[in-house]
């Protein structure tokens, strides 16, 4: 059984001082093209691309004025689309925020990515709980996030988040946004386009459907302006650290990224998630610094940054072989795939695509060639039938 492997791309890597190791031009298409080409050479399932509607900061809900870390990011959906024609097999999973955006625009953007990539699109819907980001839109007042975020990050699996009305609303809104997107993707039946010259009809309008979604946050009439994507529905993935996002992932996602720090925690989280859904694929996130000298590299980067690396995900330093052992150990706990966050690119990415994949293959746990043309195919997810098709 092949293990599913993804890498999470963000700037120069996930260590805040990573850019000082290789000094990449993170605002060039070339930088990203090289990374995704390397990931595809490694036969990975997909890459994710981080995004947010605000500037990076070490503070939870304010600008930090730091000048020694990467600041600035592209819109991830457009970046993924820019990379699509340069690749042919690997899945492309951009982050797109659902809190301040229009579900209709996000849905057709992801559908377009799926058309452009020939069925390789995914999406990581993300909530934006920050008051500082709400001020970029000026439509809603959010409470300061600092204390809530501490709870979110410090207590994986914490139960008390769902009691907070602000967060509860954000995740309810996110679930509605995913529901709208899925309905819009289904709103065109696969064979809606008929091009019937005899009757002069380009489409069979009985195969286009109003979605008539009405909720407390928005209403969307439909149908989509974009024909059904090649995958039917692109793959929805959710990062989750606690009960509330687990529920969101269980109800809305095809893949959930969880953040255990040990095999034991992995087992406990899998049990929680499986209590909510037996369908969602469970991936674990790990921040990885790899190679014989990984510990020394990490120490050097920590020193450059002036602080020890912290992360919501477990931090792994070691050789690709040692990492392969950990992944297989966690797989026995019920984890089906991994999203690895390279500490610094290209180094730690290449350690994954060349070193780790070879180690996993040697253990019979990773593919030798791409065996499917779509992201759903790679993940073993069936192409969903349109929900409106059987209504007639």
């Amino acid at each position, binding site marked *: 059984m092949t293990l599913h492997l993804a890498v999470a791309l963000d700037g120069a890597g996930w260590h805040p001082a990573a850019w000082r190791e290789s000094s990449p031009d993170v605002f060039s298409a070339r930088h990203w093209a090289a990374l995704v080409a390397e990931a595809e050479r490694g036969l990975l399932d997909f890459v994710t691309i981080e995004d*947010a*509607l605000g500037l990076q900061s070490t503070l939870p809900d304010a600008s930090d004025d730091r000048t020694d870390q990467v600041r600035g990011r592209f819109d991830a959906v457009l*970046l993924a689309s820019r990379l699509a024609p340069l690749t042919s097999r690997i899945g492309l999973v951009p982050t797109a925020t659902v809190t301040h955006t229009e579900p209709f625009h996000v849905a057709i953007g992801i559908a377009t990515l799926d058309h452009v990539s020939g069925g390789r699109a995914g999406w990581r819907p993300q909530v934006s709980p920050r008051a500082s980001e709400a001020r*970029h839109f000026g439509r809603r007042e959010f409470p300061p996030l600092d204390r809530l975020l501490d709870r979110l990050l410090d207590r994986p699996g914490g139960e008390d988040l769902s009691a907070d009305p602000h967060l509860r609303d954000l995740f309810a809104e996110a679930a509605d946004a995913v529901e709208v997107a899925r309905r819009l993707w289904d709103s065109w039946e696969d064979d809606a*386009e008929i091009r019937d010259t005899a009757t*002069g*009809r380009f489409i069979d309008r009985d195969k286009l459907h109003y979605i008539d979604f009405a909720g407390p946050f928005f209403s969307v009439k439909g149908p989509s302006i974009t024909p059904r994507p090649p995958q039917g529905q692109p793959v929805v993935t959710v990062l989750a650290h606690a009960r509330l996002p687990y529920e969101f992932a269980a109800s809305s996602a095809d893949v959930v990224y969880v953040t255990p720090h040990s095999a034991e925690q992995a087992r406990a989280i899998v049990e929680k998630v499986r209590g909510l859904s037996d369908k969602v694929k469970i991936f674990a996130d790990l921040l990885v610094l790899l190679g014989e000298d990984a510990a020394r590299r990490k120490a050097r980067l920590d020193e450059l940054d002036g602080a020890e690396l912290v992360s919501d995900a477990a931090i792994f330093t070691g050789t690709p072989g040692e990492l392969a052992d950990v992944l297989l150990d966690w797989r026995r706990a019920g984890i089906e795939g991994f999203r690895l966050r390279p500490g610094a690119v290209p180094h730690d990415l290449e350690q994954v695509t060349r070193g780790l994949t070879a180690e996993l293959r040697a253990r019979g746990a990773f593919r030798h060639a791409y065996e499917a043309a779509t992201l759903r195919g790679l993940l073993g997810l069936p192409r969903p039938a349109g929900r409106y098709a059987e209504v007639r």
Partner: protein
Amino acid sequence: MTRKQVHLAAHFPGVNNTTVWTDPRSGSQIDFASFVHLARTAERGTFDFFFLAEGLRLRELKGRIHDLDVVGRPEALTVLSALAAVTDRLGLAGTVNATFNEPYELARRLSTLDHLSEGRAAWNVVTTSDAFTGENFRRGGYLDRADRYERAAEFVRLSRELWDSWSPDAVAADPAAGTFVRPGGIGTVEHRGRHFSVEGRFTLPRSPQGRPVVIQAGDSDEGREFAAANADVIFTPHGGLEDGKRFYADVKRRLAKYGREPHQLKIMPGVTFALGDTDEEAAENAARIRRQQVGPQTAIAFLEQVWGRDMSAYDPEGPLPEVEPDLSEGVSQGRVPIKDRAAVAAKWRALAEEKGLSIRELVIEVTGRQTFIGTPESVARLIDEHVQADAADGFILVPHLTPGGLDDFVDRVVPLLRERGAFRTHYTGTTLREHLELA
């Protein structure tokens, strides 16, 4: 003295009856390969830019989705970003509605496209007063005409504040010094306006063009004023020589009020064309295309939009019936409404009687004939003459076929425009601003 240069853009065929899908050469309106074909053709022809329209709700007639024209298109900026990977110099212009977007998010997306295309992004700003389209959006509802333009103007001003908010040298990326951004390089935007209230920092450095090119496509007095104040390019329906000259003079005259020079706003009418080896053949081709564009069912649909009632019982190849228009409410949704339907109906009836036209012939007669019809030589001459006579600075060409509708034009007309010294033989700049001589 160098000759005034023609600017050209390629409009991807849209979702109205200009686009002929019944032709055997008609390809997919959604496969990425179609976009690649047209974009590469335009780039081979050294066009200024590639243009995508937008429509955020499927059009309806008589309360049902209109099924006679091409339906379905991608999200514009997403497909343009992919096209940036398969083209090098071609400008990439997307229509994005200012009514159903927020400045922080859209300015970011446009800046991203400008970075990822190395300076080739353009934004065609449109607005809508359409509650029908608003039903797809959380910020639905509608604005009246004056508010729409005021909001759009504030939207553009705020976008430019965001695009300008990082100093040009903000990104140091100096690992030895440990400085990624220079101190003070990322400014804070504080905007308090009637329509938007935005405070914070933008997430991207200044893009290669500094500010992506802004295109405006309205024709009303407010639209012209908006363009004079804010736009780099205006996309107009005035493709004729005389109305083009009037429009051109009117809009260029408005620029001084905003401290702008005439060359800072390029006027580019949207035009159609039909080519042939001889003038007769071109005329035949034009007539054949018109019949394809106005099929029997489409002729009835046009009639229904003016008459405001179901006309499906009438024979499109037969005479106009005696029935009077129902002026109570329209039957069409998601299109620009027809003003004064009673007068239009009277005019159509008079014309049909005078010339003895069937319904279909009438609709062919009254709906847009191709702007330029002729041999490649005569079309090249007409285009050049319009530009030299200040009826336009260039044209946005709307081919009737996807994706090959521009092939003949690029192969046969562009070389003649180049021979006339009126059009570039190769790209001399890398950014769209440079192509448009706006830099």
